[in-house]
């Protein structure tokens, strides 16, 4: 009992320390480090929000780009009129509403059908908005007022912290349990009293909320956006890979995955511009071969090896 509380204190302290260090980054770190950290934060946010819903339920969503894009477009439309925090809130709400609608329509689809529907959603939005702008508005693309590097960094940091707290609370509550049960056997969950549909839709929308917020904040870095940029399918795929790479189940899996993925990619791109895909690909294949349960699995195994404890962990 005592041991677990002291372990918990330690974890808490560690998280706090990292947080303080991160929060002060713009004060001591070179500007580019802050920029890099910002994109790491962005991927962390998307990966964690993705894992919030898709991790336990097993509904692999490829709609992240749609929700992220909704945030971006909000920023583009309201960026000049409203202050950044407000823009972020509106972007988040826009995504939330979009996800409610989409969720109500799609969440009865299962497996790959759901995956492809969500992917289709991104493409549909992209092509529809493109067509709308081209034929109805007669122009495409918008200019977003840029914000300072530190501003975007803090915005992303705050979003991530709120997100992590939210996920933590949800996971620890009864609803966390219910989400896992949906992933295991939806029918049985329903017969045990879980209002499966509503729960799925709400959590789906909550995860979209944070993606929208991230999109609204990040748009200020790009100055110019058009539908192709806003609804980039890479934004749907990368977080999934990062989460699988890190380990989907524990909260810190997608966080670690996003950090390593983003840093590794940037490292390779700048060192080996012509071969980085090759190297990155090989690393991915080898990693998955030797870490079948993600980085987190590896860490847990190492940890078990070190601490020598036999722990009946899932």
């Amino acid at each position, binding site marked *: 009992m005592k041991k677990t509380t002291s372990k918990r204190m330690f974890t808490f302290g560690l998280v706090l320390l990292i947080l303080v260090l991160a929060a002060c980054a713009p004060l001591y770190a070179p500007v580019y480090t802050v920029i890099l950290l910002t994109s790491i934060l962005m991927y962390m946010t998307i990966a964690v929000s993705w894992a919030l819903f898709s991790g336990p339920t097993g509904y692999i969503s490829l709609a992240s780009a749609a929700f992220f894009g909704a945030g971006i477009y909000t920023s583009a439309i309201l960026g000049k009129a409203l202050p950044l925090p407000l823009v972020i809130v509106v972007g988040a709400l826009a995504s939330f509403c979009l996800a409610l609608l989409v969720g109500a329509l799609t969440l009865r689809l299962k*497996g790959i059908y759901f995956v492809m529907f969500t992917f*289709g959603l991104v493409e*549909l939005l992209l092509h*529809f908005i493109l067509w709308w702008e081209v034929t109805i508005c007669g122009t495409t693309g918008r200019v977003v007022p840029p914000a300072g590097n530190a501003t975007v960094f803090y915005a992303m940091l705050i979003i991530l912290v709120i997100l992590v707290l939210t996920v933590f609370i949800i996971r620890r509550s009864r609803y966390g349990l219910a989400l896992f049960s949906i992933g295991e056997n939806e029918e049985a969950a329903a017969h045990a009293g879980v209002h499966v549909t509503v729960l799925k839709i709400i959590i789906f929308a909550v995860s979209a909320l944070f993606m929208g917020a991230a999109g609204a904040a990040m748009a200020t870095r790009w100055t110019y956006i058009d539908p192709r940029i806003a609804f980039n399918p890479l934004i749907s795929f990368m977080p999934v890979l990062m989460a699988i790479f890190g380990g989907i189940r524990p909260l810190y899996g997608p966080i670690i995955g996003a950090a390593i993925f983003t840093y590794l990619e940037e490292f390779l791109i700048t060192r080996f511009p012509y*071969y980085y895909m090759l190297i990155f*690909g090989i690393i991915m294949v080898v990693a*998955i071969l030797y870490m*079948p349960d993600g980085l987190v699995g590896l860490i847990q195994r190492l940890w078990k090896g070190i601490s020598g404890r036999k722990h009946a962990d899932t």
Partner: protein
Amino acid sequence: MGSYMMVTILDVVISGLLLGGIYAVTAVGLSLQYGVARVLNIAHGEFIMLGAFITYSLYTRFGINPLICFAICGPLVFAVGFILYRTLFTRLRMSSPTPGAFEGNSMLACFGLLFIIQNVAILIWGADIKGYTYLAFPVDLWGARFAANRLVTLGFALAICLVFYLFLANTRLGKAIRAAAQDPDTAGLMGVRINQVLALCFGFGALMAGLGGALISISYKIQPTMGLEYTMIALIVIVLGGLGSIPGSFVGGLVLGLVGSIVTHIEPGLSLVAYYVIFMLLLLIKPTGILGK
């Protein structure tokens, strides 16, 4: 006037089928890989790209007829797929704790493959768009006009899919493949050599991708980065048609082609929007695809 209408309709329908045929060939292979071997092969389009570039090189370098290139690039790509499954994916399947984990892990591995294959292709062929012309002349059919190469392509697409379907539906191996998809352990209890069958499936999937690529290179321009686009189309087609159903993939491909052709005829700007609208509507009406169970 009536006959003009008829010709227009014929034109729209056949144009749709011509496009749909290509979609179908690319999808059938993925259907096999995902429906049976449980590998959501994001690198499927890269195999298509390989097929296309091999054909391109053979034709432009050595003047080998693209249709004959089939016999070369099909087996080549099959071998790549088969070996990949035997080495990489079999190991992954054994080490993944659950089937769900295997699906996730194999998708990640496929992303790795996508990067590797694409990069290698860029290093070999360069990143730029390539193309050649073959059978680039018109053929008149009942008053409407079509490209000879596309008609040939459609013919081949039909034939390939048909042969493949008959193979799966009627042979012992075909049955084993379907059983393996549903419960590999129990299929093993029936005497099925699971690892071999799954590798064959993956290989056949790659083979179909290779042939699809060869066909694509005749009518479309190609580049090393073209893969993902075709992967996505193929995914849409197999989902539209019903997962794991070969005729489903075929029908799905044709439906998509037809829809595209009809909408392009009316308002080209909406043709891609229409793809997705149809796709999503169909899923909502029939959540398991057109021919899904």
